[in-house]
């Protein structure tokens, strides 16, 4: 076996760069738009959670083995692995755990006015893993006073009209900053 390890074998790396004009030229690419449609079962826990949203309630699951009271609810506790048999309505208020002012859309196009994704820590939740609260990803009202958006700011859910709710996370339109901030 030849021992060529010490030679500088990285000098002529292969891999050919295409510029966007070349790339999008019909000759160099084959295009296809696959179409798949999925219909996901929402499951035991999230199914109930979504039904709760339709009724204007946020449901947390309660662990039969530890103190955990969690949103989004689960069928089982991922910490102690016991079933989470009970669900309970909790307050739709909480605090901003973290936030961003996002100037790009899902397809990477830009937007003038930022969307405001936030992670909400719900007041009445108990997360037993590190004593952290529990919560979900959602958005803050785009017309919020930007100077008042801080980690720890108090927020509450703004719901769709009862008749328009369909049992989806978007039944909560967004969260809004509370007066007390």
């Amino acid at each position, binding site marked *: *076996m*030849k*021992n*060529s*390890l*010490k030679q*500088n*074998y*990285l*000098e002529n*790396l*292969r*891999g*050919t*760069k*295409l510029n*966007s004009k*070349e*790339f999008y030229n019909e000759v160099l690419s084959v*295009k*296809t738009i696959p179409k798949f449609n999925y219909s*996901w079962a*929402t*499951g035991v826990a*999230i199914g109930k*959670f*979504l039904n709760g949203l339709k009724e204007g309630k946020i449901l947390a699951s309660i662990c039969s083995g530890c103190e955990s009271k*969690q949103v*989004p609810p689960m069928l089982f506790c*991922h910490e102690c692995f016991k079933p989470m048999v009970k669900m309970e309505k909790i307050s739709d208020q909480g605090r901003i*755990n*973290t*936030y*961003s*002012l*996002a*100037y*790009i*859309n*899902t*397809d*990477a196009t830009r937007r003038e006015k*930022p969307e405001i*994704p*936030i*992670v909400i820590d719900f007041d009445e939740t108990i*997360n037993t*893993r*590190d004593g*952290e609260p*529990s*919560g*979900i*990803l*959602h*958005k803050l009202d785009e017309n919020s006073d930007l100077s008042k958006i801080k*980690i720890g700011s108090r927020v509450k859910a703004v719901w769709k009209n009862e008749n328009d709710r369909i049992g*989806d*996370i*978007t039944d909560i339109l967004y969260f809004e900053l509370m007066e007390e901030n």
Partner: protein
Amino acid sequence: MKKNRVGMVSVGMTKFNRRAKETAKELCYYSSKMALDNAGLTRKDIDGVIVGSAPDAFDGVHQKHEYLTDGSGGMNLPSTRGYVGGGTGVFSPIQGWYQIASGMFDTILVTTEEKMSTVQPSAQAAFLTIFDNLIERPLGPNLIWIFALEMQRYMKKHNIPKEHIASVSVKNKLNAIDHPANMLGRKHTLEEVLEAEIMADPVRLLDVSPVADGSVSFVMMSEKKIKENGISYDDVAWVDGVGWNVDTTLWNNRDLYYPKYVEKAAKQAYHMAGLKDDEINPTSLRKWLDFAEPYDPFNYKELHHLEGLQLFEKGGAPKAAFEGITARDGDFPVTPSGGLLGVGNPIAAAAGMKTAELFFQLTGSAGKRQVELNENPRGLAQAWGDLMQVGTVLIMKGGRVE
């Protein structure tokens, strides 16, 4: 359990490009053939292959590993896929390690590949599919959101100035100039990074690594085979410790300021390498290791990971980076390769490139990127992926083993 010693004996790679003309399989061929050639081996000499690649959604080709296996030298051989998102490039060599360490095989050819230019209009559209399908995707999220949310939490927790984080982009893009696969390496000022186009506050364009096409391969061998082949121990990087860990996909259900799963993966690797708990602290570890290649898809992630790896105190990495401690000629070089921020980020191949840097550095073949090594040289590569939940860690050791 008695484990056989395993060494990495060669590396092959392609250039990293925004769009490669080659198909994914052709990229795999270039890097895997190069790795074989550099070891003086042919396909007949290998017992099996590992093919690491991240989501199939980038390629629009289902079961990518089966599609890539022949390009990776694996036709009619035992072939395994490495597939833990961004963590793949470090996990694939770990898979190579355990197939050899167990005594099952002697020689494994590992390839880590990604072609991200295929999905239109951008890779962002495919990244959407990693979010929870029931309660997150209806909100129309994009990948930058979660990085922005995590970075905001990290900065707030430790009161970190953005300048400290931005200095990582300057350092890595500068280091990348000397890397042969380099796509984006160049000299940037701190101001350029701080004032780059806003994406999702606090993330700006130069805080982010670019999507790319590329492939990196390695040959891994048992010590027995290395001896039989007459390979000098000076030309081998030995696997010293490995670790991997996965948290839940409920990413917003843990405090994002600190990657606990990286800590757990790192401790697994340190323990395997023989360290005791009281030796796993920043001061001891930075003496024990000569350099590190933590995963840097975003500048703050390098710092976040250095803390998870116990190489700096919580909140201590940003200042160290800003003060030059982690520069290539600093006290503790971090990402001498130039990393994902500089060389480019073809996901699985990007962390493969970080693993390859351990080989180059530890065999003294890193050229202009060479860092100073101690008598018992060691380096650590770490990758991270999926939905803020995977940590993979590989420690390798150079020179003569005891």
